[in-house]
């Protein structure tokens, strides 16, 4: 069974945690997330021009690049994570240019060698899948697609075709870290997607608190939290692991027990 199938096949919904690679002591921060109950890790690849991100993740990208993080460093972090955590799915998330810079084959082979399970590329829609998708599939790495409130019924099949691992439902039309969507709209959209696909659906964008996470966990297979964790990395530096552990435990508790009542 793939690591995704195992993580989303548990009896409770999954908590998906995002932080940016190279923003602080990433190994220690990742360990804190896993130990506190994260089921899936999304590791952000820093980029100079994160067009779909709000201020928190933009700042994390700049901190990471300012500290000199390279693509090799990102893969080293991933490789070492995989050595320490055999079973936790690891997803690289980022923008097309750093991924295709040395050619898709180079990127796909590095992902496979580092034990990366999936890749989310924000700015490669299904229309441009050629740029990366076929190579990832060849290397056994799942291209994880995004569906959004603007992805209408006519378009959804195209998004789902070629999606692997899980589907990431972006709950708001907007950038990361901003407002949260109405739970009714999330519920309806997740149900719509699940009618056409067997993939697990994780919901993200704007989820900050255990309460919000619990509400979403009632209607989706997974909940993604990013900006709130990234802000902790920025604010607490070397002290971040303890703070990340605190928030992640609360989020995990909320997500894992959401369906029990």
């Amino acid at each position: 069974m793939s690591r995704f199938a195992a993580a989303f096949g548990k009896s409770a919904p999954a908590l998906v945690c995002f932080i940016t690679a190279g923003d602080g002591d990433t190994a220690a921060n990742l360990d804190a997330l896993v130990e506190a109950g994260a089921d899936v890790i999304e590791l952000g690849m820093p980029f100079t021009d994160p067009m779909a991100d709000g201020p928190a993740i933009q700042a994390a990208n700049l901190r990471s690049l300012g500290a000199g993080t390279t693509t090799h460093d990102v893969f080293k972090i991933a490789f070492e994570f995989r050595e320490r955590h055999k079973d936790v799915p690891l997803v690289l998330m980022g923008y097309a240019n750093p991924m295709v810079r040395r050619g898709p084959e180079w990127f796909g082979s590095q992902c496979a060698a580092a034990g990366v399970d999936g890749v989310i590329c924000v700015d490669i829609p299904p229309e441009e899948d050629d740029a990366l998708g076929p190579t990832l599939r060849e290397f056994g790495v799942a291209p994880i697609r995004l569906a959004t409130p603007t992805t209408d019924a006519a378009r959804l099949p195209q998004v789902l075709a070629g999606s692997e691992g899980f589907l990431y439902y972006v709950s708001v039309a907007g950038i990361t870290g901003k407002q949260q969507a109405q739970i009714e709209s999330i519920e309806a959209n997740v149900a719509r997607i699940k009618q056409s696909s067997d993939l697990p659906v994780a919901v993200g964008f704007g989820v900050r608190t255990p309460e919000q996470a619990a509400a979403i966990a009632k209607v989706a297979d997974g909940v993604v939290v990013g900006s709130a964790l990234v802000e902790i990395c920025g604010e607490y530096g070397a002290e971040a692991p303890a703070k990340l552990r605190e928030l992640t435990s609360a989020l995990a508790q909320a997500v894992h027990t959401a369906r029990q009542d």
Partner: protein
Amino acid sequence: MNTPLNSFRNLPDERGHFGQFGGRYVAETLMPLVLDLEREYRAAQADPAFQAEFDDLLEHYVGRPSPLYFAPRLTEELGGAQVWFKRDELNHTGAHKINNCIGQILLAIRMGKTRIIAETGAGQHGVATATVCARFGLPCVIYMGAEDVKRQSPNVFRMKLLGAEVVPVTSGGATLKDAMNEGLRDWVANVHDTFYIIGTAAGPHPYPEMVRNFQSVIGKEARAQMLDRTGRLPDLLVAAIGGGSNALGLFHPFLDDPTVKMLGVEAAGHGLDGDEHAASLLGGTPGVLHGNRTYLLQDEDGQITEGHSISAGLDYPGIGPEHAWLKESGRVDYTAVTDEEALDAFQLLCATEGIIPALEPSHAIAAVKKVAPTMPKDSIILANLCGRGDKDIFTVAERLGVEL
């Protein structure tokens, strides 16, 4: 117009690709909008009423056709080919940018959009966008790098006079590419009512094609005017390149005229041998940014590096994808000139022709200065004088050590 099979004028393909360049590299949230925009643009193209309104505004509001001007004293000074200029600096608002803004705002209105956003570097596209928004009574938000807000204060004030809200962007290097990022962020968050007027022939399909087509009025007029005045086509076209819209506007209608050579002029800043230039084609490599695959200034990890040019309008680390393709196909030649050379050309045009050019076309003039003497006296160079220099007098004064 019918184009032959082996035409240089029949791209992009239906996916918006110019060979390996172009495309629609945008977040899923924007993808349905970009498709919708393409549909609406195709409908507008097929609608004679749309074209009629565009033409009418260009004539009576912008002041087209712009003159085709033979520059006798510059020609004599350079001692070679005849130098002619397409005078788009005489347009309302002082540059070619307004041609595109008229087209896009008509499309926005047709699509029922009620709010306009745009990015700007030098402020010329921002001013042109604010102008058409005032003309049509639509609210307008202009994103501008905080550095550029400081460098281009007269244009910031112009935009405000025209009723635009100017938002200084502090992320990244706080220049044009960061303003474009912020424009895209606004667009994803306001997809239902907002139209993004992109200012150059870049961005996701259909923008590169659409902007090129709106700007092609430059080349269509120039081609007819040249035939009318001289009975022949020019031997060489020259235009400056930031994102590439004025150059494509001039070049595109001539692409299938095999005797017409073309030269695109990038900004070499302090020189192509260092990092401080904005020559994406000559000093960059292919990559993906702002919705399309094209040549970029980037490092080995694909991180985008900052461009530099004395001209804020050329200071962009990418270039429209059609230029990337025209370079690879060999149809158009590309060169670059330095800040110094552009400044010299700026002064030369002032002194010989009584025309103060913008720093962007000063790059084209600098290239003309180099090639004209190598060409016979009966040959014709046509350069795009795409903007006037009023906005640049402060920058030039500072460089010349003059206090205003």
